[in-house]
């Protein structure tokens, strides 16, 4: 009985995966909404606001893709996923794309058969500790109890870092960021570790953010980006170039404020013209119409605007651009040319 139910479930999942593998772009257009996997709630990146509207940096990417494909940035069905459920949700076709601070790694790309469509945030793993603990470096953490989200790359980085530095620790696995926050604040663990951006976002939600300090060490590279299923290159291209359009828009000075102006008639910058569809037929090549990038950028602004609005220095999360500045400003953001 049990076995048959299980096999049945597997088969259903298998059929769903098989069906979804063919033409996600057409599926999304036919459905009229984009199913986008996000976190269960990480302020600044993806969290529902007081009215239940999802907002955040990752949410912005979802909305941009929905606007590019469907012409409506609100035509997104947000599917909250945990560190454990996200890949199954994507592989089974439950979601069309995953924008959930997911680290681009070799095995996820190659072995799990996913396709990372770019990097929207260059991150690294850090530690947060209460100031009262008097710790100023991660090297002093030997013997500490550390809360960590299970099913993430942070778990492996942590093991590697402590082994390399010949220190021991006690991991306390937790399922969601909210749970980790609760355990950390109750003192059930001395340290909470996740990506630095996540730490900043978590600290912003504390009652007294000033009582906690993020240690200077960054123990890993965490390039976070949206991903889609392997083998559907048309859909992968749509997501990849939507992200690139947001990044390129910032580079070329296209913002949500001036985009209507710039898109109304061809300007004197050919690359901007091609991006905004006033010249050439890039949209058509992508299987969309000419205005795709205009809509993607209008819905939440360009990359820089999304950053400033959701996680920038003037928000409670207060992240500086750092590595996430444009290459022209000494950062790592570098969109391939639109031609």
């Amino acid at each position, binding site marked *: 009985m*049990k*076995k*048959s139910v*299980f*096999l*049945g479930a*597997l*088969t259903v999942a*298998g*059929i769903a*995966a*098989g069906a979804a*593998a063919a033409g996600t772009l057409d599926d999304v257009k036919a459905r009229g909404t984009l199913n986008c996997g996000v976190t269960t709630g990480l302020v600044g990146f993806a969290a529902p606001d007081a009215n239940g509207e999802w907002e955040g940096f990752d949410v912005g990417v979802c909305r941009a893709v929905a606007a590019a494909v469907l012409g409506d940035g609100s035509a997104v069905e947000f599917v909250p996923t945990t*560190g*454990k459920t996200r*890949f*199954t949700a994507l*592989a089974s076709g439950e979601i069309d794309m995953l924008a959930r601070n997911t680290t681009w790694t070799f*095995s*996820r790309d190659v*072995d*799990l*058969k996913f396709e990372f469509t770019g990097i929207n945030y260059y991150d690294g793993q850090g530690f947060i500790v209460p100031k*009262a*603990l008097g710790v100023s470096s991660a090297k002093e*953490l*030997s*013997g*500490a*109890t550390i809360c960590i989200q*299970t*099913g*993430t790359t942070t*778990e*492996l980085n*942590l*093991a*590697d870092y*402590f*082994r390399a530095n010949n220190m021991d*620790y*006690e*991991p*306390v*696995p*937790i*399922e969601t960021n909210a749970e980790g926050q*609760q*355990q950390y604040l*109750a*003192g*059930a*663990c*001395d340290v909470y570790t996740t990506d630095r951006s996540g730490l900043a976002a978590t600290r912003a939600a504390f009652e007294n953010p000033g009582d906690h300090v993020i240690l200077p060490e960054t123990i890993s590279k965490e390039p976070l980006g949206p991903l889609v299923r*392997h*083998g559907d290159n048309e859909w992968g291209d749509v997501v990849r170039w939507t992200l690139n359009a947001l990044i390129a828009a910032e580079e070329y000075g296209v913002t949500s404020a001036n985009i209507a102006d710039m898109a109304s008639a061809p300007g004197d910058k050919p690359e901007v013209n091609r991006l905004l569809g006033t010249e050439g037929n890039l949209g058509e090549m992508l299987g969309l119409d000419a205005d795709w990038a205009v809509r993607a950028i209008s819905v939440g602004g360009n990359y820089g605007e999304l950053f400033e609005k959701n996680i920038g220095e003037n928000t409670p999360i207060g992240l500086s651009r750092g590595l996430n500045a444009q290459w022209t400003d000494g950062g790592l953001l570098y969109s391939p040319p639109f031609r």
Partner: protein
Amino acid sequence: MTTLSDPPRESFRLSMLINDTRYRSYTFQFIALLAVIALFAYLGSNLMQNLRDAGLNISYEFLGEPSGYDINQTLIEYDSRSSHWRASVAGILNTLLVAFLGCITATVLGVVVGVLRLSKNWLVRKLMAGYVEAFRNVPVLIWIIIIFTVMTAVLPAPSAFRGDDPARTMFLDAVAFTNRGVYVPKPVWLEGSGIVVGVFIASVIGMFAYRRYATKLLYDTGKLLPMGWPSLVILIVPTLLIFFILGRPIALDYPALKGFNFQGGIQIRGSLIALWFALAIYTGAFIAENVRAGILAVSKGQTEAAASLGLRPGRIMNLVILPQALRVIIPPVISQYLNLTKNSSLAIAVGYMDITGTLGGITLNQTGRAIETVLLLMLFYLAISLAISGVMNVYNNSVKLKER
């Protein structure tokens, strides 16, 4: 209407498979069997086809590769260089540990509550009914989370024990209750401790031998030897003597606050305590109902007959009622044990690293081998459940009514 001779013996014809009631049921059973086989073959081939289409294959090679993650509570040697297989074994042992502790506690709790629910004392009876109804009717996951959250929120962090004038002090200077778990002293086995343990085991055997001898003497001659205090003396005195003669070879390692945490002693983690207690009180409520049903199944005449022989209520329960009730109680209790073991897979809710947390959680995530690990998990839970019910059935056979 007169004599009936045997009908002429017909030779078998194909139509008889449908028309003849002797064969008809076989025909339908055969068809049904074929349909079931075909269904499974279809599902299986569909699964394999879809996996092939997705470019995935079933492979268990990942079990031999280094796991790369740490586990906080392991009963075997384990670090992040150990293989995924070893991580699974560590998880299995953690599952078995909590299942074992849970089953024992649930049984004790269940028997006590089940008996007390039939008490003549109104207050006790109602209190026990309240316990059973409250715990039986709320999902066990909720209980696990409640106990864990309460422990985390109510108990102090280890830092409360720090300083010259700490906010909290250790209970009896030996046990520390913190929101990371309970730290208790650990016995340290020094030279000669083996002898003490040996003497203790011998004392236990000696005690049972004495009791058996006393019972035999009672039945044979009617001479009543005292049972209580000699048993206690046999159990304790020789062990204590040898312990002090050898110069206290068993010492205690007390937990002490060093660095971030308590060091030394044994740490019983909050996650284990929460899971263990929640499973025990939840399953205990069900077992209490099984016990009550078993006792009520023994006819009242048995109690009255025993009372008329002059037995006291306690002895009636122990000697007359429970032995008969056990036959009714044990089969449903077996399934409660199985439920408890399977419910322990909710461990991840509080971060207890059982098999579902290691193999079915982190390993599954890091390798992405969902189907393989889930199949392995099913196999494990199946094996452990069959083993438990096997052992319990042996016990059941030993107490069930012997028909002569």
